């Protein structure tokens, strides 16, 4: 296992770089701790696969360097980096049995037959695949094949990191959950450094200790699932994480309040450090809004109510702005004269899409 350091890493697929927009991956500096489970989360084309390919050694970064446990591996080939990777589509050696598949990485490295046998049996037990060791790998289901891919990484006791490139894409929904918890279990037991690429927030949030949210070639936030939910550092993180995403509306500041369409939103943070001339927005999660007939909140009109089972999502209008409001299943949505109630501790202020933090 290893600590992974990314120093000034940037990559462009173009031979002649002219402007910052030419970078598929913009400069980033990160330290990923030994034994951590990290998820790279972001929409297609945000640079997460580029970053993974740089770590695995398939791509050489345009700038910067990458270190495993303090040792520079930027110029090392994939095979010398001592990593394991599970791909989007299962990669197994069709003509081999499950046993031979698992033994393959060890045999290639000249490990003795008895040691190979011991490791293979140990990993097969771990993955609950002892019964299919003698079977041809080609006839197995997609989830079993993914387990073999993972197993080929695990048999090498000394891997620096295990990389996952959207590994659950082709797995049936009910097995996704099962495989994910098996992964988590393995992580807890053996403390592998794991890097998991996905565009599915549920996968990222349930798998990882730290989620790295990427957008347009840059890391917009790295944090625990809770941090991403409560204090999104960029409006994109607010939209992208949570279902429905964060409400983000333009505002201006008047004293200690944010003014939205002439109505005051009380705030408790981020007011002391506003950059001059920036375009401002408030961000409030639907979970921290509610509707009531009483109080002093602004009156809103109800556009529609979607019942999602455990809760309802009401779309409400305040002048030109639409808000989503999460309402508990048992609570009633007032049809007329509804007022919007805001939890002031969870109102975030954004200047040019970036969170305004206290100085």
């Amino acid at each position: 296992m290893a600590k992974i350091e990314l120093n000034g890493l940037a990559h462009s697929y173009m031979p002649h770089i002219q402007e910052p927009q030419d970078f598929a991956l913009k400069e980033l500096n990160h330290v990923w701790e030994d034994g951590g489970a990290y998820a790279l989360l972001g929409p297609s084309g945000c640079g997460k696969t580029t970053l993974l390919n740089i770590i695995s050694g398939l791509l050489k970064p345009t700038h910067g360097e990458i270190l495993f446990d303090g040792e520079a591996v930027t110029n090392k080939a994939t095979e010398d980096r001592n990593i394991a990777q599970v791909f989007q589509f299962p990669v197994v050696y069709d003509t081999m049995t499950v046993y031979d598949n698992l033994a393959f990485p060890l045999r290639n490295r000249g490990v003795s037959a008895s040691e190979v046998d011991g490791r293979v049996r140990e990993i097969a037990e771990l993955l609950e695949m002892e019964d299919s060791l003698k079977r041809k790998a080609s006839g197995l289901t997609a989830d079993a094949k993914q387990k073999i891919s993972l197993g080929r990484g695990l048999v090498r006791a000394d891997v620096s990191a295990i990389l996952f490139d959207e590994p659950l894409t082709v797995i049936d929904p009910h097995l996704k959950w099962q495989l994910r918890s098996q992964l988590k279990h393995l992580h807890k037991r053996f403390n592998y450094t794991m890097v998991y690429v996905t565009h599915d927030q549920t996968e990222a949030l349930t798998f990882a200790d730290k989620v790295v949210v990427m957008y347009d070639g840059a890391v917009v936030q790295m944090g625990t699932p809770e941090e991403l939910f409560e204090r999104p550092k960029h409006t994109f993180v607010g939209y992208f994480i949570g279902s429905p995403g964060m409400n983000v509306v333009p505002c201006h500041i008047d004293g200690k309040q944010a003014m939205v369409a002439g109505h005051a939103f009380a705030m408790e943070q981020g007011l002391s450090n506003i950059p001059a001339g920036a375009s401002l927005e408030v961000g409030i999660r639907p979970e921290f809004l509610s509707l009531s007939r009483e109080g002093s909140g602004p009156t809103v009109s109800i556009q529609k109510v979607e019942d999602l089972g455990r809760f309802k999502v009401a779309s409400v209008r305040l002048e030109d702005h639409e808000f989503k409001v999460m309402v508990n299943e048992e609570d009633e949505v007032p049809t007329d004269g509804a007022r919007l109630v805001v939890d002031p501790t969870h109102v975030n202020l954004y200047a040019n899409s970036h969170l305004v933090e206290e100085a």
Partner: protein
Amino acid sequence: MNKWSDNRAWWLVLPVVLIVAFSAVIPLMTVVNYAFQDTFGNNEFYWAGIEWFQEVLRSDRFHGALGRQFLFSFIILSIEIPLGIAIALAMPKKGLWVPFCLILMALPLLIPWNVVGTIWQIFGRIDIGLLGAALDGLGIEYNYTQNTIDAWVTLIVMDVWHWTSLVVLLCYAGLQSIPDAYYQAARIDGASKWATFRFIQLPKMNRVLLIAVLLRFMDSFMIYTEPFVVTGGGPGNATTFLSIDLVQMAIGQFDLGPAAAMSLVYFLIILLFSWVFFTVMSYLDRAES
């Protein structure tokens, strides 16, 4: 769901039956007619039973041609298949050179058989052919019209020149269908070049390879035009393969009975081998799933 049968559907097959009958079954039956009967002209036929078959199957001439035919097919397969795989592996996977290589590979396949024969017939001549003259100039004795080995070598090199491309193109298609992730996984697993070939590339190519072997076997087993143009079956009958022998018997000597019998035997041999290949292929398919 209840399925109901309506025999009127058979009428829909009728056009195909008629076309196949006109183009294949009736001509074939004519051959069968000649194979079991004797004729002395005037459209008079006498029943001959299996006499012609016995004559053909017992003749040294047929055994010789059959032996040469198998040897020829065996040699060209054992050259063209490995060579085709090797060239396909060496071809670029992307970039500007891909279309260039593909066109280069396709060129020999686009040349008509008799033209290929003529090209090599002239190419190998000592007086005016580049190859023949060059070998002669180097002091190497080479004469495909008189020396058996030279004639065989010429025909084999010609066939390799003409048809290896087909194997290359099929293998290349098979190789292109392998996702990059497999190569990356092989690198991560520390696989050598040979192991990558043995456990990734070859298994992914096995179906196209079977098709390549089948096509090249059938084609080479029926080869006629090129050897006819280059050597005419000689020197002596050193390069007289089955189809050349058959044409000599049927059109040269006008021995229609034995020629018809031989046609049927020839046809059955090809059918048998195609069936074996088909069985092997579908067996492999089943074993894989």
